[in-house]
């Protein structure tokens, strides 16, 4: 099974879930030139990202080319109990996508 591009850490403490994710993705702006070929490196960046907790969307994100390479996102949710399923998914401008599920601990 191919390794996911998404690392996710989801912890719940005192009724607050803390979700941190690091995604392996070039987030290429499309503005850079390859110095060896002189050609523009095409834009390749995540446009949509979604986080679901037990099937309900708790975070819905749109990104542009100005989000850093290997994007990091951390946010908090007032709820969740250990064992709940979190799903993080993304789609980029070239049609690629990935998703990962993790349990809240």
């Amino acid at each position: 099974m191919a390794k996911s591009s998404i690392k996710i850490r989801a912890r719940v403490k005192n009724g607050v879930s803390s979700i941190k994710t690091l995604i392996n993705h070039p987030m290429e702006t499309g503005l850079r030139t390859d110095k060896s070929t002189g050609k523009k490196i095409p834009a390749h960046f995540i446009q949509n990202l979604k986080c679901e907790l037990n099937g309900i969307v708790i975070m819905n994100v749109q990104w542009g080319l100005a989000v850093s390479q290997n994007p990091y996102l951390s946010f908090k949710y007032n709820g969740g109990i250990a064992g709940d399923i979190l799903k993080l998914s993304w789609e980029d401008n070239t049609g690629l996508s990935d998703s990962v599920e993790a349990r809240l601990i």
Partner: protein
Amino acid sequence: MQQRRTFLKSSLACSFVVMAVASGLLTPVRVLGHWNRAAFNATRLHSAMKSALGSDLTESSKRITIQAPEIAENGAMVPLIVSSSLENTEIISLFAVQNKTPLVAQFELGKDTQAYISTRIKMRKTSDLIAVVSAGGKKYSARKEIKVIMTGCQN
């Protein structure tokens, strides 16, 4: 329970909303649908805000905080934490004023999601970072200047 926002599934529904908004019948409550190409491609701050939010008018608020370095050595990785204590914060939008395309990101929060975002962005040069919070049908903003030593946008 009052529904805070209506989810629009089709472009037809979107065009009805646009007509209703234009005729003053609806207060625009922005909901993120398909990737907002017009907003992300806009090269001027005011156009980006109008496309992303429906309007470029916001009320300045001290209840939005932006934590970011005063000086970012590497403009390609500027860490930010944006949070809001405004009730009913629904969307947090980030704009880097001097980026070629100022709209950086939009975060639509679920009902019980805290108004707190920590992420890393690219900045082309020293400029203000503006955080706009869409809350209860209104828009509020805060800004912070971030000095950038090495540009985050090579070209």
